[in-house]
């Protein structure tokens, strides 16, 4: 019972959303704690063994990894969905589940940034600590600086506490991971008023392809997605809340959290707006049939319009570059879909091409899509048959069904090189819909035949977790291993770091340099420089592509000279190896891609003999040249 205290004795308030009673006996809690401590320890040991196996390239990393994950998560799932588990026990298990599921990422990147976007955010946070300013342009991901939510938070925590930027980031990200788990649980409770269904919804959401690795990275979506979920919680309470001050208060909280989402990540802000619009559309349709109270529909629309105004104003005034940044990805993806549909069938990508993932992970990846489809079909029948719950709950459930259905069109995008990144990102949103509408079906099944359906559902849960994770993240992102050229996570050999440290210590920071994608990550983050990796309007890759006996385009030289570029970084591995992710500089580079390196050694060493490039550093693979444009065109012997 919730009490209201007003200058004296406490009085009862109107009943709140019912919570499951706390466990009457402590015995289940003790058994649960003991089980999860033991399985958690075993799981952690197996995850460490998986990383060791990957480092030494024994090939057993996949088996160790999944054994480690499942040895903890399956008992945790049991305790979460068990009918007799109390409210606090569920919350405790959810917290442990959130903590454990952060462990794979923690073990992958304990010391510093490793994933592509992590370098950008790390750099941005360090710039705030050094210069005390926001909105500086980021040289690695050009729009990152316009969305300061995450890195300003990390920089503030690092500054206030004295922990390193990376440790401050880990602290924020672990809290954010816990928030997403608790947030889905609370949102599901808002819709279904059943803690068991809410726990199942949380588990299903945690099976999405981004949950273990992508949305735990030091990237803006890792913070923005929990904010999106909590914004939806506040929105539901505003829609449900009694008229007057309480509704206004929840509305203000909704606007505050949506503003924070917008200041954190562009795509999540647009995703939030999309989800709110879906909820509004459902509410309007139901209002037209006189099912929904007017206040629910009006509140939903008012808050969605407020969020839309914030999104548009922010993208227009603060982050106008965002449209130009996102637009080419979508346009190219649509082109590639059109190409696939055309006669040649070109433009597509082959899933798991050259992947070292075992066959059973690949099979599970396809199986997981089938399970999602069957789950949504069952949810559709369930929602049609059982029209229960208050107006807001029903509205939320139908809205989430529409959101979950969007998961499947995104599968089309995954088949295109440009759309794959966007598709993966969209699954973190659409899986929320799937989780929230499939959960009551799962609980219904469990109640019918607990043993058989429970065992079968645990097996399905394992398959979906394995499959979605395999579909969402390359093995090189998931596991350590021998250096691999052209992998965002394994290209950073000590030689590159040493070259970047030398340049920074002898020439200073914030230098404009020309680099490839992988050197650019290190020089642009740890090195504190401003690398450019090329674009259609500033094709710096032409420097590398030019044959030794050919002149560089005068226009490019003019651009480099007038924009005060001072250094050129050359990674000679480009002449010996093919990049693992088939990118040398950027996604739409005009560089031939085949099973042979796109460059000859002559193309990369020609700068040893051009009078306008002074070779100031060389370590075998990495060479640094200083531009001397004044010597351009002059002869030297």
């Amino acid at each position: 019972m919730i009490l209201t205290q007003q200058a004296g004795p406490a009085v009862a308030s109107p009943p709140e959303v019912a919570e499951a009673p706390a466990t009457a006996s402590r015995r289940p809690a003790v058994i649960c704690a003991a089980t999860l401590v033991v399985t958690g320890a075993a799981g952690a040991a197996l995850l460490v063994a998986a990383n060791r196996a990957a480092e030494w390239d024994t090939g057993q990393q996949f088996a160790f990894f999944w054994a480690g994950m499942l040895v903890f998560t399956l008992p945790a799932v049991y305790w979460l969905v068990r009918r007799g588990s109390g409210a606090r026990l569920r919350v405790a298990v959810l917290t442990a589940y959130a903590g454990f599921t952060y462990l794979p990422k923690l073990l992958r990147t304990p010391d510093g940034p490793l994933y592509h976007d992590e370098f950008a955010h790390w750099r941005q946070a360090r710039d705030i600590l050094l210069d005390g300013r926001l909105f500086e342009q980021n040289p690695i991901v050009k729009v990152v600086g316009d969305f300061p939510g995450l890195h300003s938070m990390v920089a503030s925590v690092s500054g206030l506490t004295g922990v390193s930027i990376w440790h401050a980031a880990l602290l924020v990200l672990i809290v954010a991971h816990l928030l997403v788990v608790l947030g889905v649980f609370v949102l599901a409770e808002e819709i279904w008023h059943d803690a068991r269904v809410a726990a199942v919804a949380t588990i299903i959401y945690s099976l999405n392809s981004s949950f273990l690795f992508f949305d735990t990275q030091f990237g803006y979506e890792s913070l923005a997605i929990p904010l999106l979920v909590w914004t939806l919680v506040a929105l539901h309470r505003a829609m449900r809340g009694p008229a007057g001050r309480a509704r206004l208060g929840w509305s203000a909280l909704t606007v505050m959290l949506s503003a924070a989402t917008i200041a954190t990540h562009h795509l999540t802000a647009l995703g939030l707006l999309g989800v709110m619009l879906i909820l509004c559309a459902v509410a309007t349709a139901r209002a037209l049939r006189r099912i929904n109270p007017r206040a629910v529909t009006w509140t939903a629309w008012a808050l969605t319009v407020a969020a839309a105004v914030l999104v548009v104003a922010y993208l227009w005034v603060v982050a106008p570059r965002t449209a130009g940044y996102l637009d080419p990805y979508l346009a190219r993806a649509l082109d590639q879909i059109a190409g696939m549909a055309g006669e040649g069938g070109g433009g597509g990508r082959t899933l798991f091409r050259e992947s070292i993932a075992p066959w059973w992970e690949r099979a599970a990846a396809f199986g997981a899509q089938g399970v999602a489809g069957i789950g949504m079909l069952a949810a559709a029948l369930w929602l049609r048959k059982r029209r229960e719950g208050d107006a807001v709950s029903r509205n939320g459930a139908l809205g989430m069904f529409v959101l979950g259905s969007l998961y499947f069109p995104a599968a089309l995008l995954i088949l295109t090189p440009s759309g794959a990144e966007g598709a993966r990102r969209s699954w973190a949103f659409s899986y929320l819909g799937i989780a929230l509408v499939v959960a009551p079906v799962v609980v219904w099944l469990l109640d019918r035949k607990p043993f058989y359906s429970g065992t079968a559902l645990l097996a399905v849960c394992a398959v979906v977790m394995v499959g979605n994770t395999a579909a969402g993240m390359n093995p090189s992102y998931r596991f350590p291993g021998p250096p691999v050229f052209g992998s965002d996570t394994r290209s950073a050999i000590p030689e590159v770091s040493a070259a970047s440290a030398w340049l920074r210590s002898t020439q200073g920071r914030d230098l404009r340099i020309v680099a490839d994608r992988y050197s650019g990550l290190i020089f642009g983050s740890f090195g504190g420089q401003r690398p450019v990796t090329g674009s259609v309007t500033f094709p710096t890759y032409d420097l590398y592509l030019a044959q030794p006996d050919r002149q560089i385009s005068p226009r490019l030289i003019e651009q480099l000279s007038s924009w005060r570029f001072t250094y050129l970084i050359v990674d000679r591995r480009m002449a010996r190896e093919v990049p693992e992710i088939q990118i040398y500089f950027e996604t739409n580079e005009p560089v031939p891609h085949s099973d042979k390196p796109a460059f000859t050694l002559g193309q990369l060493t020609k700068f040893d003999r051009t009078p306008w490039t002074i070779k100031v550093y060389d370590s075998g693979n990495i060479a640094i040249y200083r531009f001397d444009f004044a010597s351009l065109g002059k002869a030297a012997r």
Partner: protein
Amino acid sequence: MTTPRLLAAAYAALAVLAFAPRLPWLFAAVCVAALVALGELWLRALAGEAMPAVTRIGLATASGLVSLPFLAITLHVTDILIRPRTVAIGLAVLVTVLGVVVLLRERASGAAIDPRLPRTLAAVAVPGLVTLVAGFLALQAYDRLPHPPEPGFTSLALNGWAAGIEGPVAIPARGVHVPVRVSSAGVPARTQPLRVRVGARLISGRPLAVAPDTTRSVDVFVPAPPGGCPQRIEISLGVTSTVFYGRGPGRC
């Protein structure tokens, strides 16, 4: 917790963060506590009604966290540099404003107190702490296990004044000593030929012992190139090299 106590706790935590000598991991816990307290003030100021304990914990944490970017943006807009002390002072101002709103609100309508909150908070904090300890132990174990050696390298760089060469160097008739930096990491000791070429001519060559995992500076003599036209000067150590251009005292 009553609002005055919450305010006192938030002020105390912020004072520690702003003025006490740094104890990083302890301060991290203090910072999280301060942000959750701040988030709770947001909730009392805006929603001001009872809610399930887990909802309160989640919303308070989220609201506390997002206070940091809001504050950073405010500091930026008002042209104040984002520094630890300005952030702490800004948070204190925010705590004060929210505290006033909450106290005024509670005077009118009373305070919502949920007796389940402390236990639910413990249900989050205890497993959270246990998993943090487990994660820390796993990291320690992983760190202490032997790892494969990383690929080594030997680097050669222009050093000292030579690191600042921006164009052709005027070399006097007596020649010039060019400092180079030789660094080795992860490779065994070896002796490599240190050579100087001016134009196409090999001027000098001598073996140079490179000890493992060391960095040192070596002066290399470069004679004046014949004539005053720029000539390519290459200093190489094994397969690595530096290249710059120099001109002698004569006319081109």
